[in-house]
C-alpha cells in the first residue's frame, strides 16, 4: 500500500502509523455533553466504501495526514494535511 504524504510525496505505508477515523479531528467542547463525547470516543462506522482515516508519517516528516480511501477497492482517493483540514473546518 502506498500513501502520498502531502509533504514528502508517495511513500510505502510502513512509514506511517495508523490511528483511525478522521472523526478524531472533531473534538467536542468541554461542555459538549455526554452524547457528543460518547460518539467522539467510541462510535465508529465500518463502511464498505469510502472512509477517511488519520495516518501519522512517523518515519518521515511527522505530519498527520487525512487519507480518503475505499475499503472495497483499496483505492486511495486523497491525502491532505490534517492541520489544513482542521483549520478549514474551524
Amino acid at each position: 500500500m502506498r500513501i502520498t504524504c502531502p509533504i514528502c510525496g508517495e511513500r510505502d505505508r510502513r512509514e506511517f502509523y495508523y490511528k483511525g477515523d478522521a472523526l478524531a479531528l472533531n473534538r467536542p467542547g468541554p461542555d459538549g455533553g455526554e452524547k457528543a463525547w460518547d460518539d467522539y470516543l467510541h462510535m465508529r462506522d465500518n463502511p464498505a466504501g469510502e472512509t477517511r482515516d488519520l495516518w501519522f508519517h512517523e518515519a518521515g516528516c511527522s505530519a498527520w495526514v487525512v487519507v480518503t480511501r475505499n475499503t472495497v477497492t483499496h483505492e486511495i482517493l486523497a491525502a491532505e494535511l490534517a492541520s489544513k483540514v482542521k483549520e478549514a473546518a474551524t
Partner: protein
Amino acid sequence: MRLETGGMIDRETPITFTFDGTSYRGFSGDTLASALMANGVKLLGRSFKYHRPRGVFTTGSAEPNALVTIGEGAQTDPNIRATMQEIFPGMVARSQNNWPSLRYDVLAINDLMSPFLGAGFYYKTFMWPQPFWSKIYEPLIRRAAGLGALSGQPNGDLYEKAFAFCDVLIIGAGPTGLMAALTAGRAGADVILADEDSIMGGRLNGETLMIADQAGADWASECVAELATLPNVRLMSRTTVTGAYDQGTYGALERLPQGAYDTNEGLPIECFWRIVAKHTILAAGALERSIAFADNDRPGIMTAGAVRTYVNRWGVAPGQKIVVFGNNDDAHRTAQDLVAAGIEVAALVDSRPEADANGDFPIYAGSMICGSRGRHGLKSVQLQRLDGTTDTIEADCLAVSGGWNPTVHMTCHMNGRPKWQPEIASFIPVPKTIPGLFAAGACNGVFSTHRCLQEGHLAANAALSALKIKIKKTPIPKAEDQGYSISALWAVPGEARAWVDLQNDVTVKDIKQAAVESYSSVEHMKRYTTQGMAPDQGKNSNVQALAVLADVTGRGIPETGVTTFRPPYVPVSIAAMGAGAQGMGFAPRRLITSHKASLERGAPMIEAGLWYRPSYFPVPGETTWRQSCDREVGYVRNVVGVSDVSTLGKIDIQGPDAPAFLDFVYTNMFSTLKPGRVRYGLMLREDGVVMDDGTTACMAPQHYVMTTSTAAAGEVMRHLEFVRQCLCPQMDVHIMSVTENWAQFAVAGPKSRMLLNGVLDQRISNQSWPFMSCGEVSMQGVDGRLFRISFSGEHAYELAVPARYGDSLFRSLVARAETMGGGVYGLEALDVLRLEKGFLTHAEIEGRTTATDLGMERMMSNRKDFIGKAAAQRPGLSEPDREQLVGLKSLGAIKQLTAGAHLFNPTDNPESATDQGHVTSVAFSPTYGHFLGLAFLKNGHNRHGEKVRMVDTVQGVETLCEVHDPVLFDPTGELARG
C-alpha cells in the same frame, strides 16, 4: 540420455554434483532435473500420501513431483524444485519423503492400502479416542505424509530484501514480455523485466519456432542483449513475481545462482523484492495441463511441452521410445521435434477423431491412453482405440498434453475471478481486476507467437501513452500464426486411480467421492480432497479438477468456478521475506552513551523497549545480582549514586502558545510555571485513562523541555503531534524529540551537591538551585542543563549534556562518586529506590488506570479544559470500588512478594469471584530490610492498615500482607528539598 548436439548448455563446462550420494556430471546451464535426466535417472521422489515413485513432470516452477533437498547442515534447503535448481560444482542434492531409500521405501505400503486412504480418510478415521490425536495419530501422520525436513539448526544462508521502482514492470520474458520490453525500453520508459527462468525467452527456448527468420531462442537472446544496453531497462532473471498488492506494489523473489562465484561468502541466496510500478504488463504465459488416466503418475510421464524443452533447450532425450498423447494440435509439435532430434516416436495418440497429422510414426486418432506399467519408470502404456480395442505400446516416456491454462493467477490477487473461454477450454483474465495491470499474450489466452508479439507491443504502447511517454516505432517481427484447436479431455473413463493433483495424491475418484459426500462446491472439494493445496498450489491440475467436479455434479465449468488465487505464486521462504531480521537484526538497538563504559564494568544490559540499559554493576566478590543491587541502593541512600537516565523521552517545546499547549495536554497547570522551575505533570488519554507522567522544565519564556517515561516516549510524541496538528492547528507551537541529542545522568544521594560542585564551573547551593529548579550550567566550558529532580526521594539532580559528551561525563561522575564512597547504579537499584518512594512506572500506568486510581485526582485542574477531562469525569472512572494504588509489605512467615500475584481478603477462598486486586511491582528493599510492593486493591485508598492475602498460583507463593500508603520513604519530602 544426452543428445549428441543441441541445447542451450555449455558442453565445455562440465559440473559435478551428487544426488542421494551418487556423483553425477552435468553441464553449465543444466537444472538438476535436466542433468539427472541426462544421466538416465528417472526416479526423483516419492509422492506425499501414497509414497508412489515419481519423476520429473515439468520444466519450471509448477513442478509437482521432483522436490528435493539441497545442501547440508545449517545450509539445508528442503522442497526445492529440481526443475528450477541450477546445478553448481559440489552441489549436494537428496530425495525426500522416503525411508530407507528412494528405491525401497517402506511406506510405499500406503499405496496398497489406498482403498482405505481416499478423500476424507483422516477426518473419518482419526476421530476417536480423542487423546490419541495429539499423542499417536498426529505424529504418525506427520512422519508418513511429508515433504523435506529442516536441518533443525539456525539457517546458515544469507537472504536480502530490497525495494525497486519503475514505470513499467513486465512479468515474464517470453515473446510477449520481450516485445513489450523492447517497445517500452526503446521509448525510454523505466522498465523492469522479471522472469523466473535463468535464461530469458520463455517458451522460445524450449521450442523450434522461428521469429524474423531466425530461431526463436536466438531472437530472444538478441532482444536480451539489446535490452541490456539500455540504461533505463533492468533485467531481473531468476525472479518470480509472487503477488500483486495495493497501489502498484508487487512482491518478487529473486534466486541468486549458487556457485556462480568463486566464493559465496557474504552473498545472499535469495532476495525478496517489493517492486512499485506505475504500470504492469503481465506476460506470464501459460501452463500445460495433463489428462487423467489410470496410473498416469509414473516416472517418465510428463507434459508434452516439458518433453520438447528437455530436447530443445537442454539437449536431453527424456526417453528412447516416446509416446505422445494429446487432445490439441500443440501436442503434434512434440512428435515433430522428437523426430528431428532423432528420437523414436512410438505413437502419436490424439483423442480427437478428426485429428490429422503427418509423420513417420503410428498415429491413432480418436484414441486414448488408458493405463501404464512400470514401477520405478514407465515401461509401457495401454492404448484404447476409437473402436474400443486395446493394445500395449512399449515406451519409456509419455508426453501428455491436455491443453494450456493461461497463467491468470496475478490478475486474481485482488478478488478478481477469471472468465471461462470455451475455444481454448480454459480460463482467461478479466481486465482491470488489478489497477494498472494489463495481461498480454498466452496468459491472456492468446497462443500464436505472432499474436503474442502483437499483444506485447500493444500493451507496451498503451503503457507509454498512459505514462505520457512518446511512442517510438518498434516493428513486430515475423512469426508463426497458427490456430490452436482443442477438444476438452479431462479424464479418460475408467475405474482405476487416475491422478489429477500429483503433489497431494488427489485422484479423479477422490473428487467424485467429495461430490458424493456433498462437498460439491469447488472450495469445499478443494479442502476435502486437498486438491491444489500442496506447495505447487495445483498449477497443473486445478482447472482439470474443477472440470471433473463439474462433470460429476452436472454443472457447467463456468458455474462450478475456480478456487481463490492468493499470493504468493510460488513458495517464498520466510527467511527471504524476513531477511535481516534474524538475531540482533530483529529490532533496532538504541544504545546509551554510557553503553561502552557500562560493558567495561561488566554490567548485564537488559532491553527496555529498543534501548539497552545496565541492569547492575557487579564488583569482585558479589555472586548474585541482589548483592550488587543492594549495594547500589546504599550508595544513593547513604552517599551518592550516578545512573544513566538518557533513555527517558525528552521533547523540546517552543513557541508563544507553548504554555497554552502544555495546559491542554497535562491535567495540571503549566502556564503558571516560571522560567527556571520544573513541575511534575500527569497526562491522560482522551478516554480519561492515564497515558504518562513526567516532569516538564521551563528553560526560558516560551521554551520547555518535557520528559516522558522510556516506554511511552514514542506514544507521547505521536500524541503531542496529534494534539498540535489535528486539534490545535491555530496554536503557534513547535515540538521536537531531542531524546538522543542529550545524555542525561541522575546524581542522587546526600552528597550529590558536593559531587556536582566538583564538576560544575560554577558552584551551586540550596538557594541557587532549590528543589524543582532548573537551568543552564557549564562543565569545563561545555554547556549543559541541570534539573533538581528526584526519582528516589533523595536530594538529587539530573545533569544533561549534548550526547557527544555523554561518555566522558559519565566516566567522570562515576569516578568522583567512587572517591566519595558512592558509585554507579543500574536499573535494578533505580527500581528499588522508586518503589521505596512510591513513584510510578508503566507497571502501574498500564493503560487501564485513572488519575483517581493512582491517588492523583487533585492533579486534574478544574480551571481549564485538558485532554481526557470530559471522559475522566465519568462516574465509572472514579468509583470507590475500583482497584486503587496501595503499598504492600509481607507479614507472614513467607516474606517474598511476587509481581502479578492476586490479592484476596484473608478469609475468602482465592478464586476469581473474590479477587480484590493484583500486585504490579515488587522488590527487596535493603533500606527497610523486607520486600516492598505496589498493588492495585479494590477501594485501596481507604484500606491502609488492613491485611490481605497475596496468592501467586503460577509461582506457588502465598503470604499475608499489610496494606499501606504507597509512599514509604520520606513521606514529607524533606530529604529531596534539603
